[in-house]
């Protein structure tokens, strides 16, 4: 058997196994395990998680939120305690499957795609989507007026699907619930469509924002448990029934100002909405249907990394030269810049640039912020690489050039820099490849590049594995030619002199 055939077979076997084996990993029943252990593990994302579950502003070591109250009630009925497990919202379902916790409850909408992976309890809340605009907005009066507008929402939500169905809407995907409203207030986007509880908590108190039209769409939040934990799910259903009958659930919702007429229908919705088979369209779709979206993401990645590298090269050179040849004040400014940018995480720099600067009246577009953020960060690293390269050029080179009557800058440009560049080239290449991969960080400022495209697609189809392989391949296909190019360049420079 040829080596290539064997590799392909292995890959196929891995794909098949990864799809089949996962649900069978947990032999013991969840219910039995929870009782024995004495506590229930609850998967939840508390980052920007109000009013669902979030750290109490008065005592951040404590979690509060309507789901915290609900989880407490359920655990009490089970006769155990509840322990929240922090997990990124995007990947609550895979983490549940992996066995990180027994229930995932965090405003997870019951959808056919998700039902193909997990079991849902009967609904514990009926959500609607609320459109929010700026106070002075006149054109967008309701959901029907969104064509051609920039609308923000959360990744992997029902609202995202609704927006994509309209067509012609520029959908901006965020991973936290605070940021879309921030961007709306500063005018970076025109509207935000999100679940009503989120709008009620974050947008209603904001004097710059207002609701546009009635809530639209309707769906259910359900508690997710692993496939195979049917008995456990039935127990949860029974407990939810009790909480509704006794009025406790209503009291919780009233406390959080979430109770409305719609919720009265919860009582009638007394079965899990499974039973009808999920369409599983996206789950069965061949991989190439995702290719256009992924390639678009890849293009954004290429644009961001080349633009920011160009900035890093120019700014880095200026910094290196200031640091070596500048006067004392210039030198210390350059050194301070380099230390500050190298000594703080890129993530924080991006946050400050994008969400912090609007506080002092500077509002950058996501692309500008991404390029500036990456470019200014990498300039610090480039500067040090250049400095090392320049300082590795023997002093005699500069002296020989000066003794021929050249000025300092001419000598630098014609004699020292070309040699320093050759010395620095391997490090520069390395840096560019690193920047290329770091460009995935800009997804936190609403840039949908390749990595973000992947997480959006993977979350909505739950095909983390195959899509992950495709995306990894795409990244490699872009960075490998870069290494080759650099090696060719190095060889050519090597040909020219020692």
């Amino acid at each position, binding site marked *: 058997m040829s080596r290539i055939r064997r590799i392909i077979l292995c890959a196929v076997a891995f794909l098949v196994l990864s799809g089949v084996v996962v649900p069978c990993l947990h032999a013991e029943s969840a219910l039995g395990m929870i009782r024995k252990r004495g506590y229930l593990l609850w998967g939840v994302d508390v980052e920007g998680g109000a009013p669902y579950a979030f750290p109490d502003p008065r005592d951040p070591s404590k979690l509060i939120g309507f789901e915290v109250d609900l989880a407490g009630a359920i655990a009490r009925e089970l006769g155990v305690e509840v322990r929240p497990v922090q997990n990124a919202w995007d990947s609550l379902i895979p983490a549940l499957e992996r066995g990180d916790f027994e229930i995932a409850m965090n405003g997870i909408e019951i959808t056919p795609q998700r039902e193909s992976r997990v079991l849902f309890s009967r609904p514990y809340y009926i959500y609607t989507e609320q459109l929010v605009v700026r106070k002075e907005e006149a054109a967008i009066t309701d959901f029907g007026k969104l064509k051609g507008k920039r609308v923000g929402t959360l990744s992997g939500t029902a609202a995202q699907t609704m927006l994509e169905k309209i067509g012609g809407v520029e959908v901006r995907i965020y991973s936290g619930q605070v940021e879309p409203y921030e961007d709306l207030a500063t005018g970076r986007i025109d509207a935000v469509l999100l679940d009503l509880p989120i709008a009620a908590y974050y947008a209603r108190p904001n004097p710059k924002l207002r609701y546009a039209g009635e809530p639209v769409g309707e769906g259910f939040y359900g508690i997710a448990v692993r496939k195979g934990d049917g008995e456990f799910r039935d127990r949860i259903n029974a407990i939810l029934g009790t909480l509704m009958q006794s009025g406790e659930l209503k009291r919780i919702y009233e406390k959080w100002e979430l109770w409305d007429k719609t919720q009265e229908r919860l009582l009638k919705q007394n079965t899990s909405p499974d039973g009808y088979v999920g369409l599983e369209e996206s789950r069965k779709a061949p991989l190439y249907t995702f290719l256009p979206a992924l390639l678009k993401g890849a293009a954004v990645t290429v644009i961001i990394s080349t633009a920011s590298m160009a900035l890093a090269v120019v700014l880095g050179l200026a910094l290196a030269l200031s640091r070596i040849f500048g006067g004392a004040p210039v030198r210390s400014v350059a050194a301070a810049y380099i230390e500050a940018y190298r000594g703080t995480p890129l993530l924080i720099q991006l946050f400050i640039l994008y969400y912090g600067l609007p506080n002092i009246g500077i509002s950058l577009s996501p692309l500008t912020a991404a390029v500036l953020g990456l470019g200014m960060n990498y300039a610090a690293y480039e500067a040090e690489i250049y400095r090392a390269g320049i300082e590795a050029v*023997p002093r*005699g*080179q500069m*002296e*020989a*050039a*000066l*003794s*021929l*009557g*050249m*000025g*300092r800058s*001419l000598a630098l440009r*014609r*004699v020292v820099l*070309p*040699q320093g560049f*050759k010395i620095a080239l391997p490090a520069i290449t390395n840096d560019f490849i690193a920047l290329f991969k770091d460009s995935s960080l800009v997804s936190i400022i609403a840039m949908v590049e390749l990595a973000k495209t992947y997480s959006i697609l993977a979350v909505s189809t739950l095909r983390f594995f195959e899509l992950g392989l495709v995306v990894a391949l795409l990244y490699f296909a872009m960075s490998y030619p870069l290494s080759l190019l650099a090696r060719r360049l190095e060889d050519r*420079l090597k040909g*020219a*002199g*020692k």
Partner: protein
Amino acid sequence: MITVKDLHKSYGELRLFKGIDLVVRKGEVVVCIGPSGSGKSTLLRCINGLEFFQQGEIDIGGIELHSINRVRPSRADDETLRKVRRKVGMVFQHFNLFPHMTVLENIAEAPVRVLGLSGKEAEERARALLRRINLEEKVRRYPSELSGGEQQRAAIARALAMRPEAMLFDEPTSSLDPEMVGEVLAVMKGLAQEGMTMLIATHEMDFAREAADRVVVFDRGEIVEIDTPERIFTRPRAERTKLFLSRVLRR
């Protein structure tokens, strides 16, 4: 041509020159000898402005190096410095050819960039120089492809391409294998015969004896003796000269 008066030079705490005087007249060949660390290189580097000095005067064909402000040079100061360096060529112990340029590019670079010659004129000038030192077939080679002797000859040609009025040589043969010393010294002798003003630091005593008009003996930052080679090598007056010569000539 070159006048050094009462030169004081310190490296930090180390006070090297405490008042040095030297005059090199037009067309004269002056050779500096003396133990390592006695200050020969420092004097040459002061003369073409690679080192600055604390006190004293250096006059190069009418240009006063001592009136340049080296701490905060103005535009005019930079220009004066460049003018001095165009008048005075320098050859280094380690050649300092530009490794990323061919021999031709090494030689043509400054005439084009500094004197504003066209590429063609500069190339002709370079080829003529290379022909004179028998290196024309190496024009397209990189320095790393040349022998040490060839590299130093190319470096001399590079300095000559600026048509300097005087040349400084800082131990031009000290990093060469013995069999290549001769070819470099031959080029320098040729130059001397053509009437080039030269100030040379070297350990080649035979060369000093044959080519020098005057020999300057350095010791610990002082000029011990200046005289004709004949007198220095046969009837030195200073004790330190005798000591130095007895040490180098015994080898």
